[in-house]
């Protein structure tokens, strides 16, 4: 999730200056989401350069002038296509554990069972903690945060079910032998081999 589209989405509601954007961002998106004012300012500058936002200078008595930003037509089109493009979850996040697990199957100082166990311990401890955070969260004031926690819960649950599946497959995995790569023909090929007869 990027700051860029968040700002465009907020400016679509009505024009705002930088400070107001910062305040809105934390209330609308998620109280836990800590975006620095500097990050908002630099993003606004880049959006202005790309002609996705524009601003008017507002003069205030006894205070420095401030820029009130609004979304341009181009910005609106950009926002629309962002809303309609699907977000694809990065399943490669699981790679690190997958590699560890399959390597443990070929033999090593630690058994595959122990590798699964260590992973399961960590996942359950995280799930326990997410559950605690969920119970502490107030549905009246922290609904977006609860959504995020629910997502974490369900992903952890899926990971745990996958560990369970790995465990159930362990006996088969231990017997499993990967298909041997066909030996490369060396020298002048014999007729029979060339015809694919073994």
């Amino acid at each position, binding site marked *: *999730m*990027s*700051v860029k589209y968040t700002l465009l989405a907020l400016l679509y509601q009505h024009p705002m200056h930088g400070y107001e954007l910062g305040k809105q961002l934390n209330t609308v*998106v*998620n109280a*836990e*989401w*800590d*975006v620095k004012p500097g990050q908002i300012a630099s993003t606004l500058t880049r959006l202005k350069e790309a002609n996705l936002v524009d601003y008017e200078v507002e003069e205030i008595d006894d205070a420095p002038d401030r820029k009130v930003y609004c979304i341009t037509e181009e910005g609106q089109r950009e926002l629309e296509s962002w809303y309609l493009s699907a*977000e694809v979850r990065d399943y490669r996040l699981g790679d690190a554990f997958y590699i560890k697990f399959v390597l443990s199957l070929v033999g090593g100082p630690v058994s595959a*069972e122990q590798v699964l*166990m260590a992973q*399961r*311990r960590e996942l*359950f*401890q*995280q*799930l*326990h*903690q*997410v*559950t*605690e*955070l969920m*119970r502490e969260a107030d549905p009246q004031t922290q609904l977006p945060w609860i959504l*995020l*926690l629910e997502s*974490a*819960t369900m992903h*952890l*649950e899926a990971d*745990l*079910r996958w560990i*369970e599946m790995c*465990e*159930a497959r362990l006996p088969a995995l231990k017997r499993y032998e990967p298909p041997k790569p066909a030996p490369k023909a060396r020298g002048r090929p014999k007729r029979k081999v060339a015809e694919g007869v073994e």
Partner: protein
Amino acid sequence: MTIVRTEQLTKLYGEASQPIYALDKVNLDVEEGEFVAIMGPSGSGKSTLLYLLGGLDTPSSGKVWIRDKDISVMNDDALSALRRESLGFVFQFFNLIPVLTAQENVAMPLILDGVPRPEALQRANASLAQVGMAERATHRPSELSGGQQQRAALARALVTKPAVVLADEPTGNLDSKSSDEVVQMLRKAVDQWHQTLILVTHDPRVAAYADRIVFLKDGTIVDENRLKGQGKADQIREQLGRVAISG
């Protein structure tokens, strides 16, 4: 203080020549006020363990202590008195009596224990209120949703203020929202009333509420995972925050 303890607890099925070990020398200690989840694949012995702890089944060898009493040597009368006085049970299929109201169902263990009916009904009401079921006291089980029936069953398990509540797949027959409600009630019983709870489940989300998970496989404990007090809240807050920003 240890409130439940097993020593070399073993349960055999089948012929003596070809015994099948449902449980094989299991040693388990549960502290007072602790919430322990028991997990494991089908046939790993988790329900057998729970039934032995509850005196609903007898061990082939080994011991079970509830408080300071060795229940593995008790006769049937002593066991049923122990179950009435010291244990509360919650099952997958609620096991409420269909012709009685929620209140009467909850009062039943007290009435069987000789508590006068008006007092039993009053205590049943208090127990129903604890699980958020005060307004359903006069409903029959058929007039309650699955989650409400299970909460009534929980009120019934808690009404005698048992030393230990034993729950066998208490959410196994519920949708995920009702399941969450029931397990939150169970957690509340542990947090607020210091209830000791031992629960068998195959649902990771339910097990994650526990203080500790014991994993069984082929009748033995293969792993124990202490969940309480691991202090990963900051790590998770940060992770969720980071996912939100970068991605």
